[in-house]
């Protein structure tokens, strides 16, 4: 057993946190069904009255539906009768939800409005007791918050507002992409990765690996140590931003020490990496991670939400929702679609990450009493103006310890 430094415990990560079933169960309760705003959808996925979609928060299947007033309601996907996940299609349009098992029917607010044979059959008897009241058996509603077209849910009552939850350091980055313009859904990608879900969060908080692991990034000038870059966290440490500005594919002093820089390679289809600036500020790429299950990706002109869905300690699914804006012209849509080659289930850089996370899980699983080390860029958890650091990962573990050990 190694000793975790008491002054900066977040510089060490016990490997059992990636593998232990009890830790995983506690995460479901404390994190995903705890005091969190979980990402659930883009509002443009369910634009009309009656549109619904299903998704999963941690282990918990939920349904989101737009009611007549335009509000979005969310429920546990669990019939009040026998616990059936009553909504078994990924998306659609419904006037009401009917559980297939005994055909209990709920309205779009989750109110139980029909129970077959509630009064039995005349002459045969049966039916519910006289005191059975439909009002006592609604679907379990969960809380919904929406900001500029992005929908979050929480299983907890008395949550702070979404804006307070994100905090003043994160809201401007969120609004940089989601500035209130109408969003346009471009499509989905989903994949299952055999590693603990937290390894993925850490990956998107780890600028240190970006120009080392990703030959494609380094070689074609999309992300490299010699570019101006910064890391910003919120007060809790759970949310973070990795941002990079300016770009160059030329060889410099810094590329000499970078084995991943391949000056011999050229793209036959270079239009892939020709972005057009479209957001305010100097950043050309921003990855924002929001506790506990969301990454907002702006890589050049390709935009996506990446939703983490846990599947036990050793596996998770990543659900990518690619989007643009309703006022995009055709050229911009094409650009977003072309640049999507960089990321996703077949992304020139994302493949590397998915593979390495599986190697991490494989390496750590037999050694629950060993620990990972996070000391690049020091031992602290405050913002830094470069990317040769693991500071957002340390901040993440600070938040994790606060939530799990409280």
């Amino acid at each position, binding site marked *: 057993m190694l000793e975790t430094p008491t002054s900066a415990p977040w510089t060490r990560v016990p490997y059992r946190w990636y593998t232990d079933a009890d830790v995983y169960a506690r995460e479901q309760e404390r994190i995903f069904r705890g005091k969190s705003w979980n990402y659930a959808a883009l509002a443009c996925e369910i634009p009309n009255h009656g549109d619904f979609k299903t998704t999963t928060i941690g282990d918990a299947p939920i349904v989101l539906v737009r009611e007549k007033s335009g509000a979005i309601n969310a429920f546990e996907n669990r019939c009040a009768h026998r616990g059936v996940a009553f909504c078994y299609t990924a998306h659609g349009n419904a006037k009401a939800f009917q559980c297939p098992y005994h055909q209990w029917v709920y309205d779009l607010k989750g109110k139980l409005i029909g129970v077959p044979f509630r009064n039995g059959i005349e002459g045969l008897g049966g039916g519910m007791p006289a005191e059975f009241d439909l009002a006592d058996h609604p679907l379990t509603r969960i809380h919904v918050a929406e900001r500029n077209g992005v929908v979050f849910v929480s299983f907890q009552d008395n949550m702070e507002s979404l804006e307070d939850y994100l905090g003043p350091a994160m809201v401007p980055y969120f609004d940089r992409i989601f500035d209130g313009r109408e969003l346009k*859904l471009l499509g989905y990608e989903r*994949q299952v990765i055999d590693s603990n879900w937290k390894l993925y969060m850490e990956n998107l908080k780890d600028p240190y690996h970006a120009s080392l*692991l990703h030959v494609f990034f380094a070689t074609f000038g999309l992300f490299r140590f010699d570019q101006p870059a910064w890391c910003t966290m919120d007060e809790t440490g759970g949310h973070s931003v990795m941002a990079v500005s300016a770009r160059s594919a030329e060889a410099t002093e810094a590329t000499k020490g970078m084995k991943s820089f391949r000056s011999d390679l050229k793209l*036959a289809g*270079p239009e892939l990496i020709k972005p057009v600036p479209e957001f305010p500020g100097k950043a050309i790429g921003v990855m924002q991670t929001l506790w506990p299950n969301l990454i907002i990706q702006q890589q050049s002109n390709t935009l996506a939400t990446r939703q983490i869905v846990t599947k036990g300690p050793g596996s998770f699914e990543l659900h990518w929702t690619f989007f643009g804006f309703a006022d995009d012209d055709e050229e911009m849509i094409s650009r977003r679609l072309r640049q999507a080659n960089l990321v996703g289930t077949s992304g*020139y850089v994302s493949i590397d990450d998915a593979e390495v996370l599986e190697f991490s899980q494989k390496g750590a699983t037999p050694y629950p009493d060993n620990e990972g080390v996070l000391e690049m860029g020091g031992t602290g958890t405050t913002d830094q103006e470069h990317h040769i650091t693991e500071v957002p990962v340390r901040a993440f573990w600070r938040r994790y310890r606060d939530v799990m050990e409280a």
Partner: protein
Amino acid sequence: MIRRVEELYYDYAQAIDEEVERWPDLFTEDARYRVTSRENYDRNLPLAPIYCEGRGMIVDRAMAVRKTTVYATRFMRHAITNVRVSEGAGGALSARANFTIYETFEDTITRLFAVGRYIDTIVRSGDALLFCDKLCVLDSNVVIGSLIYPV
């Protein structure tokens, strides 16, 4: 003609599985190559995990497999079946086929990786047949790990 189209598909399978550098040679210069999921296809959503416009982008896909992508060594095996061909517009051929892809790692048994269908347009180029539009629709919406090799 069906026989010649089948030969093209078998050559395509062999190219991906055994000599991926040669795989772009089976496309025209202005070819489009896309791999997408059933849900994107059914819902008319334009996003595709692999989205190549022009042979340059197809060449880069093959280059990435060999030169820039980090992944566990694996061997792919494509089986292409149920080939059907009809005459399309302007002398082009419309072709449909099913694919089954198996994946084998150095230290594990073989597993089924993906199944789906090809919806293709094929043109004559001299004596050869080449793909000028190839759309691969995966039956599953969820990829096992990543799409590292072409489909």
